[in-house]
């Protein structure tokens, strides 16, 4: 019933749609209210990152059926300028987008698994996973 979904991130409105989709699935697989709020907040940060830094991108949303519990995995990808220094990008308060610099570092704290792949000129891919408890 929950096949993988792909959503575009091209406008501010798309960021809202991504949040709503993630919220719906997170509730469906039984994440607690706090965990729902965390994954939706992370999704909002990462979707906005793709929009602000890369001019847009997309998110691949997948429900995982783990051995003992379900999870939700989100893969945000864009073909933007990429991140030259990953360590710096994950430093709290470091920002190129005029934001608070909490997008990446903050999102990482809100999820169970976090993976960042990026190189200059090759876009950025951020994968986050939240498991039901």
């Amino acid at each position: 019933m929950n096949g993988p979904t792909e959503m575009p991130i091209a406008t501010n409105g798309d960021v809202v749609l991504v949040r709503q989709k993630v919220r719906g699935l997170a509730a469906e697989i039984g994440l607690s209210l706090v965990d729902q709020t965390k994954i939706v907040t992370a999704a909002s940060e990462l979707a906005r990152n793709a929009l602000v830094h890369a001019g847009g991108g997309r998110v691949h949303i997948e429900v995982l059926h783990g051995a003992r519990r379900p999870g939700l995995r989100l893969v945000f990808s864009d073909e933007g300028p990429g991140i030259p220094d990953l360590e710096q990008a994950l430093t709290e308060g470091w920002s190129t987008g005029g934001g608070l610099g909490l997008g990446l570092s903050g999102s990482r704290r809100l999820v169970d698994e976090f993976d960042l792949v990026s190189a200059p000129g090759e876009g950025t891919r951020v994968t986050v996973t939240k498991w039901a408890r």
Partner: protein
Amino acid sequence: MERVPILKLGDILIVSIQIDLDDQSVLALQEDLADRVVSSGARGVIIDITAVEIVDSFIGRMLSTIAAMTRMLDAETVVVGMRPAVAITLVELGLSLGGVRTALNLEKGVAALEHVRGTAG
């Protein structure tokens, strides 16, 4: 883009956010509020986020900006109705909303504003 309505009750402006805010609506609300504070001479602003399911860094920054901005315009802002899950997530995100006065609900928010004005004379 949807606009958030601003209500006036005495010398307090009340904003109840009932929509899923996109970034443009957030920026519009900041500007609308600054205008209304000046045109109405309001001394207090209450932002009700009871219906807000998530506060990310952008919305968090809006709350801080509005609080700082209205203070410069001689009005105090109180954010009311934050959900527990939102508070937990904000702290973990790294946002503590320093400088933003909060109250648990609208009633306590109004009382907090009256207290501020009382002590300020």
